[in-house]
């Protein structure tokens, strides 16, 4: 290596003297930050957009919502209108999904069924947020005895299968004029917040030891503020993922209960009821079971794809 590397200048020649005068940028200036503002959520949305399946799932759910709300309104048929001259029609232009044993338009009934499924989904999500998050949050935040007792209750409820609850409720409310749909809601209400409570508890247990929670205490924040302003917002990622994955499971439970005759029953059209009716005629008229079954599977896939996508997008360990 040479003793002294030659000074190379962009213009080739030595720059004029003025370039070599000291002119430091003012010190003592306020510090700036570079870059555009980004938030956790904008980051997450960017990441989920890159996940094709999740995007597809998202749009399927939007389409389902749209169909559920608008479909039955614009359909020329109602879900209970019988047309005994046109029973068991194969799919045609007038009846794209065909008609059933009473000549009811199957497409209208499937669309109506999506309302019930979505109602189940919404109830499940709401209970998850209201009971599950609060319950798990309180158990974890106060810890110790409170936690022990609250979580034992969860363990006990966990042990009771949904099916048993529904059967008990059916027996209990028999001939009391209570809609069977209410039974299903109560059963789902009693069981579906449990996993959420456990997940939130786990999250809060680790979050509450983080320094920002301690910092909130040192500035005198009361307990409810620490729990609801500091801890739960930081557990939002896992909470949303859990809800997204719980909803299809609740929808499926309703369909299953209706299928085996413990949920809603005819003429109310739930996907489970439709599938059950269709199964009876599966040999001669397979399309009757095909469409409700398709609707159920599509919903399952859509929520699960979205849920998986959200899990990847919201997982703090995967953040770059």
């Amino acid at each position: 290596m040479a003793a002294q590397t030659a000074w190379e200048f962009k213009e080739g020649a030595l720059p004029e003297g003025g370039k070599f005068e000291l002119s430091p940028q003012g010190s003592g200036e306020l510090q700036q930050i570079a870059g555009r503002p980004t938030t956790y959520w904008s980051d997450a949305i960017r990441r989920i957009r890159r996940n094709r399946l999740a995007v597809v799932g998202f749009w399927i759910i939007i389409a389902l919502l749209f169909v559920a709300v608008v479909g039955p309104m614009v359909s020329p048929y109602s879900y209970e209108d019988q047309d005994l001259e046109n029973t068991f029609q194969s799919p045609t232009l007038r009846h794209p999904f065909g008609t059933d044993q009473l000549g009811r338009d199957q497409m209208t009934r499937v669309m109506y069924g999506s309302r019930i499924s979505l109602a189940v989904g919404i109830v499940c999500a709401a209970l998850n947020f209201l009971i599950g998050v609060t319950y798990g949050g309180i158990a974890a935040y106060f810890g110790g005895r409170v936690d022990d007792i609250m979580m034992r209750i969860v363990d006990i409820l966990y042990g009771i299968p949904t099916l048993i609850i529904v059967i008990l409720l059916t027996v209990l409310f028999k001939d009391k004029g209570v809609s069977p749909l209410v039974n299903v809601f109560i059963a789902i209400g009693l069981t579906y917040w449990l996993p959420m409570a456990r997940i939130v508890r786990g999250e809060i247990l680790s979050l509450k030891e983080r320094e920002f929670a301690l910092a909130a205490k040192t500035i005198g924040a009361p307990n409810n503020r620490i729990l609801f302003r500091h801890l739960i917002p930081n557990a939002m990622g896992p909470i949303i993922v859990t809800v997204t994955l719980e909803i299809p499971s609740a929808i499926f439970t309703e369909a299953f209960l209706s299928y085996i005759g413990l949920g809603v029953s005819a003429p109310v059209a739930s996907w489970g009821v439709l599938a059950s009716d269709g199964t009876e005629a599966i040999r001669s008229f397979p399309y009757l079971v095909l469409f409700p079954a398709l609707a159920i599977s599509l919903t399952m896939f859509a929520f699960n794809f979205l849920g998986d996508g959200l899990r990847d997008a919201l997982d703090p360990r995967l953040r770059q």
Partner: protein
Amino acid sequence: MDTILKVEHLKKYFAVNVGGPFTRQMASLKAVDDVSFDVGRGETVGLVGETGCGKTTVGRTIVGLYKPTAGAITYCDQNLCVLTNEAMRKVRSKLQMIFQDPYASLNPRMTVGNIIGEPMDIFSIGTLAERRERVQELLRTVGLNPEHANRFPHEFSGGQRQRIGIARALAMNPEFIIADEPISALDVSIQAQIVNMLEDLQQNLGLTYLFIAHDLAMVKHISDRVIVLYLGKVVEVDESKDIYRHPLHPYTKALLSAVPIPDPRIEMQRQRIVLKGDLPSPVNPPSGCHFRTRCPIAQPICAEQQPELRDMGSGHMVSCHFVS
């Protein structure tokens, strides 16, 4: 100098499971074991020691994050240990803490403005506009651009986040700040910025600091007095300018000799006192003098008798049998 904080015979034991993952066998971990010291108004007291010797625990117990197992903490003639939660919350506004990890100590879901303004929000001080005004003023005080008030913490660098943490601590006009390793997570070139800022704030606002650190050179620089902790006990207390020149306790000597000096002429020749082994577990500390398992001059008596913290004159306290 009047005393602003007095800690007397403070003990903090944690119940920990020592039985492994499948069996439950509780033992008490003596994180802080009979620590006494006082801090004068306007003074900076440094608290040093290795990881796990109880520095953070002392700090957190003082601000009321932990309930002491025994002992008294007197702040401005008020015994903090007997206060109700409500009364404690009030005192806390005068007694603030700066945390070690600038990445974990700010809520990632809140804007910087909300983080700094939260104490005022909690105690409903001023109108919304006044609070916003104060947040901007605080941001300027800690050398940040007030326009960044609605950005989120992750957009700032480590040093800038630590400034935000300091602004939050200053929001309620505190008198006493416990700084728990405020610079050890920062880059060398940024550490000096923060230390200088803390010194300026002390000058301008008349603050008192308890400065926790494991970097002796920095502690010596910033503090007036230094307390050396080992396994939850005070082993030496002295003026910071004297402790480097005349350390008395063998642990202090070893700590000082472990600090590297940025000068190859000194560093290459230096004869270090290298301590053997690691810090013993605070669950069952050695009998007698806790330091005896690593002490280069330990004698049989050290295993039997616990040395007292003795005053060697002009406030220089040492706990060792063989110091005179």
